């Protein structure tokens, strides 16, 4: 046990851990349905433009996609471990593990930047001349690719900011061994973003 258990917080403050977590899950369901709708659009267009999607997919870099999958899975591990650390009262290790998660998130974003920049250099970016000349089916593939991976990347940025704030409050002691629900909720968000990538990776990079 660490000093956090000796806190002099004697006035009873109601802390509804279950309510907070349930609220987070309900929010996650709206996220699932947001991406779910996009996956439905993907499914329909892929069904109508099978060959074009095949060609489009072949132009994506599988190696970068695979590296990013490993990076994101590892970041999920570090978040899960930081919750364990805080539950065991080791807030220093919890913060360290969140820092590792942020480094991995940065790696993911760098790879994403590299991928998009390569497409940009080839004129394959929404609004560019070469992009406008793409045949309809392939254009649909790349529109969905940029929109869905872009929306996912925005989620990575939001998740990183959330985890930064959480790390700050762990350092302050507001989030601690007794009250770690905010860290759990931050973790839930991060894992959901990971789950979305688990589907994005095979559907965009691997369809053969």
């Amino acid at each position, binding site marked *: 046990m660490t000093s956090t258990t000796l806190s002099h917080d004697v006035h009873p403050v*109601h*802390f*509804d*851990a*279950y*309510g907070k*977590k*349930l609220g987070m*899950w309900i929010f996650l*369901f709206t996220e*699932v*349905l947001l991406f*779910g709708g996009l996956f*439905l659009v993907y*499914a*329909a267009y892929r*069904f*109508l433009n099978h060959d074009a999607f095949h060609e489009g997919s072949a132009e994506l870099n*599988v190696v970068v996609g*695979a590296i990013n*999958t*490993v990076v994101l*899975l*590892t970041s*999920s*591990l570090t*978040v*899960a*471990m930081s*919750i*364990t650390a805080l*539950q*065991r009262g080791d807030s220093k290790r919890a913060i360290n593990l969140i820092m590792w998660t942020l480094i991995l998130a940065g790696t993911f974003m760098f790879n994403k930047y590299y991928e998009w920049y390569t497409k940009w250099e080839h004129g394959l970016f929404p609004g560019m001349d070469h992009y406008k000349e793409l045949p309809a089916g392939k254009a649909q593939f790349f529109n969905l690719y940029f929109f869905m991976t872009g929306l996912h990347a925005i989620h990575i940025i939001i998740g990183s900011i959330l985890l930064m704030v959480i790390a700050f409050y762990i350092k302050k002691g507001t989030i601690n061994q*007794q*009250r*770690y*629900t905010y860290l*759990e909720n931050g*973790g*839930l968000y991060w*894992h*959901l973003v*990971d*789950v979305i990538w*688990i*589907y994005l*990776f*095979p*559907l965009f990079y*691997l*369809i*053969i």
Partner: protein
Amino acid sequence: MSDTQNTHVTGYRFSILIWVDLLILTLLTIEVAQFDFQSLTVIVALVIATIKSYLVGTHFMHLKFENKFLKAVVIGVGVLFLAVLIVLFSDYLFY
């Protein structure tokens, strides 16, 4: 009082084990994608992705130790999505 949090703590070693499983499944998806199973290719990729999501959900997201209501709603959202997908394709496949 719901002041008390659930007491189950996932061990570091167990989390690492789940992570290793996830990496193996990622390798498997990439390997399997090299073969052409025709229309089954997507199904195989989605089945592996769903197994991975299941592992993340049950262990990293701690669903295994949540109450029945929460589990039921998660399954419900999954079923809802699947139902919409089936309705969508019942339209496209026969038009």
